[in-house]
C-alpha cells in the first residue's frame, strides 16, 4: 500500500507552553477545533478526539508514542474502527520551536494511505485547524466557521 506524507508549518505569536496546551487541552481544542482531545498524554496511553457536543462522539483514536513537553509530541491517528489495527494507523508529529518572540509549530503527518478518505480529510483539515488555533491564541477568537 502506498503511503503519503504531509508537512504543515505555522508561526504563532505565543509561548511554547501555550501552543503545547492548545494541542492537548480539551478546553482549548474544543474552541478552535470543535473537538476535545482526551488523554493523559503519557507514552503508551491512548488518546481520543471527541466531538465537543452532547454526543461526545469519538471521531479519531490513537496512541501516544512520544511526549516531551513543550517541544515534541508524536501520536498515532486512526478511525475508531481501526483502533486495534495498528498497521492502519497514520502518525502525527508535532514540533514546537521558539523563533524570536514566536514559535514555529511543525505538524508532520505521515504513513497515510495514499488516496484514502482520511488522506483527503487531513489535507483539507490541518490548514484550517492550525489557522484557527493561531487565531485563538493570538486574538482570543477562533475562526468562526470552524465549529460547524
Amino acid at each position, binding site marked *: 500500500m502506498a503511503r503519503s506524507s*504531509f508537512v504543515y508549518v505555522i508561526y504563532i505569536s505565543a509561548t511554547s507552553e501555550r501552543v503545547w496546551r492548545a494541542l492537548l487541552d480539551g478546553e482549548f481544542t474544543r474552541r478552535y477545533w470543535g473537538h476535545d482531545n482526551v488523554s493523559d498524554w503519557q507514552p503508551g496511553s491512548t488518546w481520543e478526539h471527541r466531538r465537543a457536543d452532547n454526543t461526545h462522539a469519538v471521531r479519531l483514536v490513537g496512541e501516544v508514542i512520544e511526549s516531551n513537553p513543550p517541544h515534541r509530541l508524536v501520536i498515532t491517528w486512526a478511525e475508531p474502527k481501526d483502533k486495534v489495527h495498528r498497521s492502519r494507523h497514520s502518525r502525527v508529529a508535532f514540533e514546537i520551536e521558539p523563533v524570536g518572540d514566536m514559535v514555529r509549530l511543525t505538524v508532520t503527518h505521515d504513513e497515510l494511505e495514499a488516496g484514502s478518505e482520511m488522506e483527503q480529510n487531513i489535507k483539507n483539515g490541518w*490548514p484550517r485547524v*492550525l489557522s484557527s488555533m*493561531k487565531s485563538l491564541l493570538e486574538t482570543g477568537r477562533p*475562526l468562526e466557521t470552524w465549529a460547524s
Partner: protein
Amino acid sequence: MDADRVFKALADASRRRLIDILNAHDGQTLSDLCVHHDMTRQAVTQHLNILEAAGLVVTVWRGREKLHFLNPVPLQEIYDRWIRKFERSRLKAIHDLKRRLEGTHDG
C-alpha cells in the same frame, strides 16, 4: 505569515505550477520537480527558494534526499484574512434560507 512574500511568491506562473505539482504529489526531490519544467535546474531551485522563504514550501531531509512539501497554511491564512469576509453575506443568505426551509427560528 509575511503576506507580501506570499503574494509575491504567487505572482509567477512557474511557481504556481510548482504549487499545483506538489499539491498533486507531495514530498518531491528537486530532480522530481525538474521533470515537469522546461527550465534549468538552477531556475527551479530559485523558484523553490522563493516559495520556501514565503513559507509555502517546507523542505525535509529523508536520508540523503531533500524532499519538498507544500505548506498550504499561508494560503489558508490569506483565505481567512482576504476571502472569507467577502463570503459572509452569501453564507448568511444560505443560512437564513436553510432556517426558513426547515421552519426553525432558534438558529
